[in-house]
């Protein structure tokens, strides 16, 4: 457990804690909404980083865990009256289970084939949920407004949900660091560098890959339940948006895949940028084009992302920029 010896650990946790603290201090609803989205993306990006950054496997369909977890949790809340906390946990576990099953099937594929398979999985699950009656089919499910009374009214419920999201974000950052500085993480990174060499050296690659996959799926599942609880309804089109999946990859790349600070900064930056572009009259229609341009520049010139680039330029600060 060497993680806390790295300044980066405290820096990242501190940044996230500060973000949450500001919201609680000002009790502003608008700020809370903005931060909710921001923290949500930080969690999604950081969870993807475990698979993409540490293990080197590109998951284009990361959003399927968000969607399925969200659906399962929502189903339990709306049809069976479960409280939010248990439903969130259940959603996360459902996604983890899906990842475990999928991993068993697809993780033996390498490279671009794995990426393609993940796209296929996302679309398959979406098409399936679209037809699955217990989950409401194409029209999805919605919560009766009375549910919010269990939490002291809608306003309170929204604050509780934000608190839960804040907790999840801190948790995922913590776990990312713990993984990175453990033998497990070392194994993952060896798979990333050269899978065959790792196998030759005795690293149990199938098992490690599966655990990484499962871990990366747990958090999106929980986040999904919180998001749809706040929205009051869920539909297949909203839950399995491929574009969001790709945007998460952009966030990880922008910040620097493989570091923990990277995805956190990358997602915060991208989300703020996106929010700004969406409401600015000049750029409103061009936010996607701008994001695409940004991605292209990163891929072509700075593939290590912001944090990665800073690490290479400032070797003294490497312990801070993990």
């Amino acid at each position, binding site marked *: 457990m060497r993680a806390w010896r790295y300044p980066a650990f405290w820096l990242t946790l501190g940044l996230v804690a500060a973000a949450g603290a500001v919201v609680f201090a000002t009790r502003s*609803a*608008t700020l809370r*909404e903005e931060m909710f989205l921001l923290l949500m993306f930080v969690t999604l990006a950081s969870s993807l980083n475990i698979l993409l950054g540490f293990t080197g496997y590109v998951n284009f369909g990361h959003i399927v865990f968000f969607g399925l977890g969200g659906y399962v949790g929502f189903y339990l809340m709306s049809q069976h009256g479960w409280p939010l906390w248990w439903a969130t946990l259940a959603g996360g576990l459902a996604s983890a289970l899906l990842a475990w099953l999928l991993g068993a099937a697809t993780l033996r594929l390498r490279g671009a084939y794995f990426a393609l398979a993940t796209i296929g999985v996302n679309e398959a699950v979406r098409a399936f949920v*679209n037809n699955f009656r217990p989950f409401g*089919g*194409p*029209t999805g499910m*919605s*919560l*009766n*407004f*009375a549910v*919010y009374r269990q939490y002291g009214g*809608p*306003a309170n419920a*929204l604050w509780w949900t934000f608190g839960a999201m804040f907790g999840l974000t801190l948790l995922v950052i913590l776990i990312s660091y713990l993984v990175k500085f453990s033998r497990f993480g070392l194994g993952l990174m060896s798979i990333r560098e050269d899978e065959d060499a790792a196998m030759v050296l005795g690293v149990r690659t199938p098992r490690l890959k599966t655990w990484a996959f499962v871990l990366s799926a747990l958090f999106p599942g929980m986040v999904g339940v919180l998001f749809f609880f706040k*929205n*009051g*309804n869920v*539909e297949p*089109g*909203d839950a399995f948006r491929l574009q969001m999946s790709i945007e998460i990859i952009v966030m990880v790349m922008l910040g620097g895949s493989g570091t923990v600070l990277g995805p956190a900064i990358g997602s*915060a*930056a991208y989300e*703020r*940028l996106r*929010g*700004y572009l969406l*409401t*600015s*009259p000049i750029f*409103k229609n061009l936010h996607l084009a701008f994001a695409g341009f*940004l991605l292209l*520049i990163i891929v072509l*010139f*700075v593939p290590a992302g*912001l944090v990665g*680039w800073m690490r290479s*330029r400032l070797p003294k600060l490497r312990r801070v920029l993990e």
Partner: protein
Amino acid sequence: MTRAFRVILVLSMLAALALSGCAKATPAPTATQPPKPTSPPTAQPTVAPTPKPTPVTKTVVIGFTSSKTGSQEVPSTGQTRGLELWLEQVNAKGVTLPDGTIVKFEFKTYDDESNKERVQQLYTKLINDDKTNFLISPYSSGLTDAAAVIAEQYGQIMITTGAASDATYKKGYQLVFQLYTPASRYLTGAVDLLAKLDPTAKKIAIVHENDKFSTDVVNAAKAYAESKGYEIVLFEGYDSGTTDFAPFINKIIGAAPDAIMGGGHFADGSTFAKQMYEKQVKAKFIALLVAPPELKFADIGEAAFGIIGPSQWEPQAAYSEASAKAAGVQWYGPSVADFVSAYKAKYGEDPAYHAAGGYAAGLILQKAIEDAGSLDTAKVKAALDAMDVLTCYGRVKFNTSAEAHGLQVAHEMVYIQWQKDASGKLVKQVVWPAEGKSADAIYPLSR
């Protein structure tokens, strides 16, 4: 050289991100503001100013989003125009409250791009940042459902128009009020019309869009038709955004129905009608949702001929002060003819029902404020609960029970069919109900 370039590139990226982080996301609401007086308008024939205290003027902000782009653009534009016509008319004199305050209205609106996520973000913004007093829904049940949650979460009244799905009002909301006839009553009249035209017709095929509104409509229609002895030979939904209806059309041909009903919204409805014509689908009666009453439906040419559609309102509607008196209900607002001519004068074309719905939304809100004598949410809500009025748009009365609060209970649908006038041009005719029709229905369709 490349190294310096890379350094500059990354530093400028960092700078851009830092700036955007600090930048206030200033929105640019397309606020349609009335000619803005804080004092009474200049065109007041004041001969000698009477020693009266200057009345306080308050500006009430009404927030809504409209689909300026995206799949819902066409009908949403009509709805927004109706709203703007009302705004112009009400701000001519404002609403005077019992305590002497003159209330004028102002709109704050954004483009939701026919996108649910945008709707929720934008309504949250309208309530929190733009400080709206009342809300109007976007166009379409799907978007309205998303917006209604936000309205209820923040405790603001929302008048919904352009949204017929019943499901929204079964969720325990207290502050959302529906103007449109609910989806469950959309196609029931079409079944009645079919029964009247051809008692021997027995088989109906239903192909509908898989969204809340259309699903509500066809589920109710199916139940109603089956209760009247019809056989539903096909009952399938297509995803929103479907452009290839060939698999469905082939199934319809295979099922050989007497009548086809369904559709969804404008874009898919028109495409469906067009492809049915291309494949020469043999049916005696075709009724589609939302698309036929739009004037732009005629753009598909011959394919539009004979298609029937339920409409919330038509210019030939027979609502009047006299019929209100006969029904024992209060009349409010301009007459149908006045509304149509004012709309035509402002926009150069006849209003379709989306425009009437938009206009009515503003009108009903105005009446509620007048009845309540205040802008307080609780009082206006009580006024809306108690309302039962006939307007140029039709009759308006809301369900006040706990299970279905806000559902519209008094408004009725009319059915139009595209026929040809003497010069061979496509025109809409009201063919049902019998008391309101302007022409007999064409039956069967010759294809």
